[in-house]
């Protein structure tokens, strides 16, 4: 009798507990949301470059300059620790792939007017692919950026095929570059 009366509230409590545990364990759902850009043309951009890239790439890098090439577009900030983690990986893959039909583009964001910090970051890792600053975050909004680091993979037809939130890994770069260049 007692058990029969307690059963319905008990079931409700267990179900709520399970829902709570699910909510706790599923991680940050906001960050796992797929980009709205997937499969769509990558947004156009005009990126003012840091001085060290200007001899090779000009003062401003535009998406029009890069037409027909696959792109790896990496958003970073000087205060972002995972960005320090992934920078050597990006540089290593750039060195390996720079003669292929792909261009890496680094975009410093959420870092308004911190040009010196940006320069220090670029020299620390000797990043040789073009990097510039999105000072007013306009490129970031166009690309639907949530946080840093985020990396977008754009195929040679100019379509976004993948977005990765968090530091890139060698496995990811291998897989996605293969996909981009095949």
């Amino acid at each position, binding site marked *: 009798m007692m058990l029969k009366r307690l059963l319905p509230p008990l079931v409700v409590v267990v179900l709520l507990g399970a829902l709570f545990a699910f909510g706790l364990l599923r991680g940050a759902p*906001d960050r796992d949301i797929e980009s*709205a*850009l997937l499969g769509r043309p990558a947004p156009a951009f005009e990126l003012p470059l840091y001085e060290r890239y200007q001899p090779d790439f000009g003062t401003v890098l535009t998406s029009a300059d890069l037409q027909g090439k696959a792109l790896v577009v990496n958003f970073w900030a000087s205060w972002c620790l995972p960005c320090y983690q992934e920078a050597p990986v990006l540089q290593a893959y750039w060195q390996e792939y720079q003669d292929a039909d792909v261009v890496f583009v680094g975009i410093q964001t*959420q870092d308004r007017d911190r040009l010196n910090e940006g320069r220090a970051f670029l020299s620390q890792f000797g990043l040789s692919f073009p990097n510039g600053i999105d000072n*007013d*975050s306009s490129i*970031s*909004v166009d*690309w*639907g950026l949530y946080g840093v680091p985020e990396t977008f993979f754009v195929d040679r037809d100019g379509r976004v095929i993948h977005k990765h939130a968090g530091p890139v890994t060698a496995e990811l770069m291998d897989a996605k570059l293969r996909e981009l260049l095949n």
Partner: protein
Amino acid sequence: MRRFVPLLLLLLAGLALAQQVQLEARVFEIARQLRCPSCVSESVADSNSPISQQMRVLIQEQLEQGRSEEEIFAYFQGRYGDWIMLDPPKRGIHLVAWLLPVIVAVLALATVALLVRRWLANSRKPIEATPEELERVRRQLGAAGAQPDPAPGTDGDI
């Protein structure tokens, strides 16, 4: 006539200021409905992150171009998907979020109404008891009257 020039200028400046204030109020009204992409549970109006600041600039620019609220929302939804809206859109799976509270409220009210009806009906029902039961109650009431603090166990059988 020349005396009125400063007055006129002041009036124009006042009008321009009022328009600016109105525009800013509209920017924040729209920004309040958008989610800050780089924050946790904060609106674009509440956040001072660079991306939110830029989103407010974009809202203002688009309002100045005469775009409607819906067009501005569509602009951000095109980049961030429905996630960018703090209120889930009223369509598809998102309808669950809108309808569920109403459904739960209706069910809860119906349950309470049903229970109240049942309680009222029960309270109006004449008491049916066999002569033995009546005798037992009478005995126990008598015992309770004589002995204000009944021993445990004697009151559990009714």
